């Protein structure tokens, strides 16, 4: 019961007036970010990260993680009331959420979404509370070879589990590796791909990439659709909330299933987006009357929201214990850790107890407070969405520019952000996933360092990667993940061949 003691100590850290204040600010900013087009969890946290440079790390992570929870909640508001997914993982929420709002059941849909998010996140936090210390203790024994194997597994599971075509995922990831390689080589001190320019010495900062790719790219995309937001209005009162909770209790199976999917996809870096789609699909498959889905089924809102939040929360587990982010937002939080001078990874649980358990305690409190905040403030957020795009767009561009500038106080970064923004737009236009690029940019350097350290210790022999059962299993799993898409291709091929055979016989 060591964990419980630590957790209560963590609550002690969080329950100071200052930290509670940061928590509330974080939640409100987070919902705002989730509601506005062009600002999402990942780039929102990236833009606000420089604000925390002078804060103490515990308060900073509490505020930033609360921005993350807030943005997860906020995405649901736009999906349900305006049929605009504010975040990629709320796309599945629009399938049934918007029909519910059109039928005048907006309050019920919103309550369902918020409650489901809360349940998913809560179960994932409980999982983190008990699993993270165990995993961290286990990971203390990891050497460079094991770390590289885990990172390799991260990369390959992206290819294997992604909803996008595997080759597009691979292409996006390799571009990320190429960008990560730019700058000073950590081991030999040689310069790589800087072409004699000074500005490229530091390489590409992934925070700049995140702000540009997700922020400016999204604005350009939204502009193209010429959006005038037309939405349903909603007011939530307590009667509706309690009625909805009563209905939701009968769907406990959906909650359990969706949380399980979400936690799994969050820990293995599948991410919140595929988790929400998978969970929606499962809910429809297991429903007694699947034809209700898409026309305003309450499970159709509960399932994707539960899974998305469970995945979003569970993504912090590998980030804290292994230093490997499970999602772009977790990657930004990881970047924050490094900036505040903390080394993410298993040692965090030994050296920075107060920080880790403060963060975990803030996850519990942040989600409870977040649920109350969004339930009571929905009409305001809906009003913000009615502000015309001609006002919102330039303000978001300005905020992105400020965010990019403040990371290193460098104008070159602002220009880089614009370039990334155009690329982000093209990527989305051509349906290439952005998350693999961001993760490769973050993890590329780390994976390279680990690989080279293992090579140094084994004097160049590759068998260090299957020498012991642990590293062998990890590498084996990675290769299986890489082969998953091939299985699908083969199946397709055989089906075609069979159809061809039938056609020839007949």
């Amino acid at each position: 019961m060591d964990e419980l003691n630590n957790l209560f100590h963590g609550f002690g850290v969080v329950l100071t007036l200052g930290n509670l204040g940061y928590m509330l600010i974080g939640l409100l900013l987070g919902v705002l970010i989730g509601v506005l087009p062009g600002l999402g969890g990942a780039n929102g946290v990236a833009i606000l990260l420089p604000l925390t440079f002078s804060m103490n790390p515990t308060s900073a992570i509490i505020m930033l993680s609360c921005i993350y929870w807030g943005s997860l909640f906020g995405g649901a508001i736009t999906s349900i009331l305006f049929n605009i997914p504010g975040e990629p993982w709320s796309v599945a929420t629009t399938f049934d959420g918007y029909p519910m709002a059109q039928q005048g059941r907006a309050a019920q849909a919103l309550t369902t979404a918020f409650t489901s998010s809360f349940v998913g996140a809560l179960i994932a936090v409980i999982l983190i509370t008990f699993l993270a210390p165990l995993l961290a203790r286990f990971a203390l024994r990891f050497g460079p070879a094991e770390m590289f194997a885990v990172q390799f597994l991260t990369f390959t599971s992206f290819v294997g589990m992604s909803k996008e075509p595997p080759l597009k995922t691979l292409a996006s990831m390799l571009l990320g590796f190429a960008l990560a390689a730019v700058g000073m080589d950590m081991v030999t001190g040689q310069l790589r791909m800087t072409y004699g320019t000074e500005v490229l010495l530091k390489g590409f900062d992934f925070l700049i990439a995140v702000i540009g790719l997700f922020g400016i790219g999204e604005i350009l995309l939204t502009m193209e659709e010429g959006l005038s937001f037309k939405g349903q209005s909603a007011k939530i009162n307590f009667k509706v909330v309690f009625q909805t909770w009563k209905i939701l209790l009968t769907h406990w199976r959906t909650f359990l299933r969706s949380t399980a999917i979400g936690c799994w996809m969050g820990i293995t870096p599948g991410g919140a987006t595929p988790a929400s789609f998978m969970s929606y699909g499962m809910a429809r498959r297991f429903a007694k009357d699947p034809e209700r889905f898409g026309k305003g089924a309450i499970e159709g809102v509960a399932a994707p929201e539960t899974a998305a939040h469970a995945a979003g929360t569970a993504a912090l587990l590998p980030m804290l214990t292994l230093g490997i982010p499970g999602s772009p937002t977790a990657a930004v939080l990881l970047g924050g850790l490094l900036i505040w001078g903390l080394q993410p990874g298993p040692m965090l649980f030994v050296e920075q107890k107060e920080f880790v358990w403060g963060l975990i305690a803030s996850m519990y409190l942040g989600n409870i407070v977040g649920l109350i905040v969004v339930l009571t403030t929905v009409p305001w957020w809906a009003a913000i969405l009615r502000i015309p795009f001609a006002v919102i767009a330039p303000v978001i561009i300005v905020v992105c520019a400020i965010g990019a500038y403040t990371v290193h106080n460098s104008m070159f970064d602002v220009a880089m952000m614009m370039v990334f923004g155009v690329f982000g737009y093209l990527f989305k236009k051509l349906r290439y996933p952005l998350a693999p690029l961001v993760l490769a940019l973050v993890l590329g350097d780390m994976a390279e360092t680990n690989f080279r350290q293992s090579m140094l210790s084994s004097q160049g022999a590759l068998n260090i990667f299957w020498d012991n059962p642990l590293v062998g299993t990890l590498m084996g799993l990675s290769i299986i993940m890489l082969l998953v898409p091939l299985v699908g291709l083969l199946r397709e091929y055989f089906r075609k061949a069979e159809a061809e055979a039938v056609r020839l016989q007949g």
Partner: protein
Amino acid sequence: MAQAASVWAVLWPTVLFTLLILPMGIYAASVSLIVYFMRRHGHYGWWRSAAVALGVMTLLFVTFEIWFKVPLPKGPLEALVGL
């Protein structure tokens, strides 16, 4: 083509804005960008556009420079006011 045109309509002012930050400072550049957008795409009057732009930048100034003590790039205009 209509899509490309509307994307271009956002892209060029944004690029110009990033180029103007260095000589003008971020506050003047941002106010210009917001006013341009509101007049060109939202068809607002001068007064309303200016009020929104100044309001947003004041809010950002207070948040970044006073509250969290993060300095932003300033130009000759801010020097004139004495910031």
